[in-house]
């Protein structure tokens, strides 16, 4: 079989770590997601399975890719796609607030932010 890609070790060693229920609860906290205990267990298993499948990309030699090339995630757009930065009407305050679950005096209203004063 013809070797189609290099399996040389990448310059920085990479491993895909495992995920257990404790890690999952931490991730859920970072993502502001309330999960019940069943979900924590199921999702920890799902994440571990999916990440194991993704582990293969750690083996690909990407040393030829420059930072600039990696950052350019879209096709090269022609010059001059940015419009002039001139003021113009945007979404009105009324429209922005009309579906807010709670609002007051032209602002979104939420419970107090912990430690944020009144």
């Amino acid at each position, binding site marked *: 079989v013809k070797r189609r890609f290099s399996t040389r070790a990448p310059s920085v060693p990479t491993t895909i770590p495992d995920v257990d229920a404790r890690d999952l609860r931490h991730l859920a906290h970072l*993502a502001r997601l309330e999960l019940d205990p069943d979900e924590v267990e199921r999702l920890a298993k799902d994440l571990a399975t999916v990440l194991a499948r993704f582990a293969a990309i750690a083996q690909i030699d990407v040393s030829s890719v420059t930072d600039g090339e990696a950052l350019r995630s879209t096709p090269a757009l022609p010059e001059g796609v940015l419009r002039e930065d001139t003021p113009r009407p945007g979404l009105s305050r009324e429209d922005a607030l009309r579906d807010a679950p709670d609002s007051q005096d032209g602002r979104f209203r939420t419970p107090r932010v912990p430690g944020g004063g009144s």
Partner: protein
Amino acid sequence: VSLFDLTAAEISLAIRGGRLSAVAVTEGFLARIEEIDGRLGALIRVTPEEALRDAARIDAGIANDGNAGPLAGVPLLVKDNLCVRDHPVTCGSRILLGHTAAYTATAVARAQAAGAILLGATNLDEFAFGSSGETSAFGPTRNPWDLSRVPGGSSGGSAAAVAARLAPLALGTDTGGSTRQPAALCGVVGVRPTYGRVSRHGLVAFASSMDQIGPIARTVRDAAALLRCIAGPDALDATCAAVPDLDSPGDGPIRLDGVRLGICEDLAPEGLDAEVREHFDGSLKTLRALGAEIVDIGLPTARHAVPTYYLLAMSEASSNLARFDGVRYGRRVPSDDLIELVTRTRGEGFGAEAKRRILLGTFALSAGRREDLHGRATRVRALLRREMKTALASVDAIVTPTSPEPAFPIGERIDDPVRMYACDVLTTPASLAGLPAVSVPCGLTGAGLPVGLQITCDHWRETRMLEIGAAFEDVTGFHRDTPWGLS
């Protein structure tokens, strides 16, 4: 010929020529939706009053001065992640229940300005997260060729609706294959335009470096007509470019003499369904008979497209979905504590697949993991794009099957994310590289399930891509097959 079997081009021609009225066409399709969609679940919302009002305006315009756009009176359905002012936009999610859009997506507004009549919104995988049309909070969409099977996803509602003749045109969105794969599984045409061809203003973002809006239709020419109407620069989307060169295929027969088409064995490392392979080989014969030359190309990195795509798409999704916090729109689970309010709102509002993706994306972007996961994926993407650009410098298009297999049974993969993600093995390379691609029907399996042929071209080469698709469609006629799942 039944009204429902007419193409968009035929309908608009008849309306402009006074042989049909837009109101009669709209009434006809609304009645068909009423009759059929209960079994299909392709639509989330139908808006008959506005549709009939818009249709009456088209008829009046034609009667007054004969003026009418290229889509005059043609019924259109749009995926429910595209905003239409004063209408709900659900993204198939509980978290947006109660929300109505404050503005209209540019693509929808342009289609309407061209005369299309918006009939309603189509079902989708929640936030376009899925390859089966099953993860919507409104329940699954069914495949009109076999109601026990999935239509594909995430634009499953749009593809099933067009296949079932609920409208001749629909808009879908394609991040990793979400117009092309459901089009393949439902036997219709689905287009992913070049990244930057169509404004995403008014599209609820999933993965901003890959999201594109694209047409779904029964013929390549209809899809091309809709694409021409929605394409072009927009001051409200800086990623949308002013590039010329987008023409519809001509009406006459198209030859492919001198056209070089690349095929690549690396693309489906886990294999193709035997019947998909057979139809693909048959398609290559047809393309050769049209004059095309088939050449082997190498895309060694394409075998890593699925993990690369998912790492990037989930990372971007976890960031884009941070805005659903119960503060500004949608539903709120009340609490005296702000963090708890946000956490509960999101916990109750998002479905299982959305949670999986948010958590995986959060993981891929978290401190200490980011370089190895998201960072590495951006580099693999760059490698793949380089390989595809090199290949497309020597061939006019890359041809592959669209999906490695035909429609699978509802429920078969919903709890198996790895198997579900593998559905996208052939569609994610174009997404990662920002390339345009189209799926056209290329036959039916022994069990009567559609198979799709995918044609991928270089950036901004949609005209050539659609010509190749139209040439194939003209000589095969698979697009004329009618789903029997509903009869």
